[in-house]
């Protein structure tokens, strides 16, 4: 079958599903990359859709850009609180044992006023101005990683480049002991894993995160009262607002910073390579004019939507897009879908590295929980792309990428590529 025929077959099949039986939280749809067709139909026919039965329980899907902004900015009606169900449909997989440890209270899953207090403390630390000092080190280390890659041989871009670069930037941000940097990646992966999916048991899960806590306690003790450096731990330890933070709170915030910047950055690096390969005219524009990288980074983040969605729990009856969401209902804001809404984004189905308003996308969320690390993410991606373009005339995808089996983390586990030198 040609691609056009496959698309038509898929469209016909999706169009036959009764609207009250659409379950867009099935992780297989993301892994086999057919999810876009489902969202296309919902945006057109039932933009705020109720799914009464799914393995993740009943939930509303909010699929259009403006409806998503409406829910995301109404934290008085829509809660993020972990105690009510948190921010991920079906749960993060974090067990009750986690609360016993007490270390995983993160403000992304809190409501005001506690959310506000903690966000205020962390936010200045990842402000663009603070990050400038880290730029030269990130650049130097990215260059070294890229220089060590073989030219003309098949390699796995995800493992050898995306993970490596993300780990490197995390280690740099925390001034983490360099030789042990893969520990950071491991801990970050552990937080979002569950038995059979990354760890063998909850005991192992807890044991690894306790190790993480001890390790950071040690770094914290070394840096508290030490000379003021620019890494995130020193800044937390050195700022009057945070120096006396209870250790568990410090740990929760730290883990949130690590997890927040791990899969998201990794999958943006991979997603960018795939998008450029699927759109050769855009790749040509980039190579002709690397000045487009700043805008391209935002476009990659829109296109990839590394976090497909965030969930809220209604605190009261609320109307969204003409539908009545009832108190206690779960509402999922599908950023991945809103980012393809052609009523708000011009030519939304096209990847265009020089579009006019590249920053107007939903991938970072909006409202009081909007990603606090957004400029940090953009900075990392900009440096990495500047260094890639300097070295390689093309990063060529030479085999079928393997996508993640997840309805939340939108990414890749494998992407075979060949590098071409200039």
């Amino acid at each position, binding site marked *: 079958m040609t691609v056009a025929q496959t698309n038509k077959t898929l469209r016909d099949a999706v169009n036959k599903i009764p609207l009250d039986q659409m379950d867009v939280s099935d992780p297989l749809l993301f892994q086999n990359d057919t999810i876009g067709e489902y969202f296309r139909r919902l945006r057109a026919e039932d933009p705020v859709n109720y799914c009464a039965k799914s393995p993740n329980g009943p939930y509303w899907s909010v699929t259009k850009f403006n409806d998503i*902004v409406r829910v*995301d*900015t109404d934290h008085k009606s829509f809660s993020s609180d972990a105690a009510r169900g948190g921010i991920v449909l079906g749960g993060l997989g974090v067990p009750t044992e986690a609360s016993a440890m007490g270390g995983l209270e993160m403000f992304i899953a809190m409501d*005001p006023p506690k959310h*506000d207090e903690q*966000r*205020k403390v962390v*936010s*200045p630390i*990842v*402000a*663009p*101005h603070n990050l400038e000092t880290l730029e030269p080190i990130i650049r130097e280390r990215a260059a070294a990683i890229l220089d060590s890659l073989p030219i003309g041989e098949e390699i796995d871009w995800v493992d050898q480049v995306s993970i490596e670069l993300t780990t490197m930037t995390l280690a740099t941000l925390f001034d983490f002991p360099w030789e042990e940097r893969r520990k950071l990646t491991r801990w970050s992966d552990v937080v979002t894993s569950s038995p059979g999916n990354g760890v063998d048991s909850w005991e192992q899960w807890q044991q690894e995160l306790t190790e993480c806590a001890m390790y950071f306690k040690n770094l914290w003790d070394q840096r508290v009262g030490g000379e003021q450096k620019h890494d995130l731990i020193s800044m937390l330890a050195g700022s009057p607002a945070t120096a006396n933070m209870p250790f568990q709170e410090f740990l929760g915030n730290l883990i949130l910073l690590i997890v927040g910047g791990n899969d998201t950055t990794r999958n943006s690096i991979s997603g960018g390579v795939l998008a450029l390969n699927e759109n050769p005219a855009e790749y040509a524009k980039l190579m002709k004019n690397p000045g487009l990288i700043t805008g391209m980074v935002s476009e990659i983040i829109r296109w990839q939507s590394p976090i497909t969605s965030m969930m809220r729990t209604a605190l009261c009856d609320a109307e969204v897009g003409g539908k009545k969401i009832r108190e206690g209902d779960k509402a999922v804001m599908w950023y991945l879908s809103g980012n393809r809404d052609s009523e708000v984004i011009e030519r939304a189905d096209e990847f265009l590295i020089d579009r006019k*308003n590249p*920053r*107007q996308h939903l991938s*970072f969320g*909006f*409202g*009081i929980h*909007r990603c*606090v690390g*957004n*400029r*940090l993410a953009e900075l990392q991606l900009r440096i990495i792309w500047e260094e890639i373009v300097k070295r390689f005339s093309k990063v060529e995808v030479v085999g079928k990428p393997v996508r993640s089996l997840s309805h939340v983390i939108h990414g890749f586990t494998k992407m075979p590529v060949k590098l071409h030198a200039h």
Partner: protein
Amino acid sequence: MPKVTYIEANGAKHDVTVDSGSNCRDAAVDNDIPGIDGDCGGVCACATCHVYVDPAWLGKTGKAAPGEMEAELLQFAPDFRDNSRLACQIKMTDALDGLVLHVPEGQH
């Protein structure tokens, strides 16, 4: 048409004419004023259009109302001050002709 002056953190000044009825975020973005990103398109959802209203003008623009979305977002802005506003929430009128807005060092 009323005029607005944006002053960057480094002191650079930009005079811009703004249609009455338009807002100070759109005017800044349309004229490429550095430091005002306005990611959400001007719907009070991102806080990347943070400005400091020159004290002489604060009486005319007013402050962000406590408890409203604008103030809730501003509390997270780096170096949030008493005269902080979101530019998208300042509607241009003839009464604001000559308005002076200071752009912060960075936004996110």
